[in-house]
């Protein structure tokens, strides 16, 4: 018996879904997180700033 195979969405459609997922996460985060205090933002470039990086990395426990 032949089973009909559903059509696949095109690459642009799937890519837009991925961008939509990203924007949804960003929107949710924007609603729930406090706005960034730009006067407290880190220097544009860490190297030469004299400030230790404050971010977290995959290699951190």
């Amino acid at each position: 018996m032949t089973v009909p195979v559903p059509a696949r969405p095109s690459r642009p459609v799937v890519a837009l879904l991925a961008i939509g997922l990203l924007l949804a996460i960003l929107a949710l985060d924007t609603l729930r997180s406090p706005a960034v205090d730009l006067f407290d933002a880190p220097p544009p470039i860490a190297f030469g700033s004299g400030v230790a990086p404050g971010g977290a990395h995959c290699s951190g426990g």
Partner: protein
Amino acid sequence: MTRTRAGLVMFALALAAYAFVAAGARAGLLVLVGLGFGLVLEGLRFGFAGPWRMIVTDCDGRGLIAQFLAIGLTAAAAFPLLAAAPDELFGAHAPVGLAMIAGAFVFGATMQLVMGCGSGTLVNAGSGNLVGLVALVGFIGGSFLGTLHLEWWTGLGTMPVITLQGLWGAGAGLWVTLALLAALGAVVALRAAPGKRMPPRRLWIAAALIAVLALANLVIAGQPWGIVYGLGLWGAKLADAGGADLAATAFWSAPANAERLGASILTDVTSLTNIGLLAGAFIAMRWKADPGAQTARLTAASWLAVLVAALIMGYSARLAFGCNVGAFFSGISTGSLHGWVWMVAAFGGSYLGIRLRPVLLRRAGPTGTGVPA
């Protein structure tokens, strides 16, 4: 086509401008770096999981040699930079441990099942690959779940953090790194078939650009290029929004992680480059006149296998202190021993994943029976 491309340029600029305005100049610059990664990885077809498969299945070492070249170029500048500014720049240094090794092995296996590694999953999703989109959802979930149990896993046995510059100094550590990369390149060249040894011009350019972008990441963010932490944070944000009490967990109650969880995603450096990377891959795909064909139709069981494998991939990447980017690329290029151990363990897992792939991934045929994908 011209209008589409103009729109894509506007999209990229708008994304970077949004980060700049919302979170400061560093955030805007890191989104630009991420966009560069996405454009190079998708536009020049530079990957990690694919070349690891190609050397085994086709005796094709070109992509793998290009990876070693990119890591070597990055290391050549990263080692002196880290030595010059030890208080401003951090390497991707993590301890070797039982869970780390097992995590890397499992990551290697699962990345062959989802047809993409950490960066590859973002690139695949951004460029419209349906497997990549499903894998991205699983990867976010898995890398978050991994944070919940990380303390238990690392408690099984973990060595102190060991770096090559810590053992021999920055100069000698760099030379050892470059010598090991060259030796590995030679081994790969010997293993590869004639005509499949020398990377094509495209990969030389890609390797150089990836190194430049990785160094820009290090100089701007103060830490190397990473993927997994950002995705785990996104999962944590979603869980938090769903009512999960993450303050009760060891990982998310640690000061650095609690700060990230309570702050905007736009303050997290790996999130910023992940956002740019996904968008860059989207732009590179849409820039072409022909965006390419969708991946093969898979059976329902195969889609489930992709989702579960991606979940496990994210979980194992957390235990392994990074994926092919945070551990392999950034670990080795900044002197961490765990990067080398990760590579060996993940390559073993990748070999297993290549064998599992035709068993678990089946194309949906007209009779519905399925053939290897």
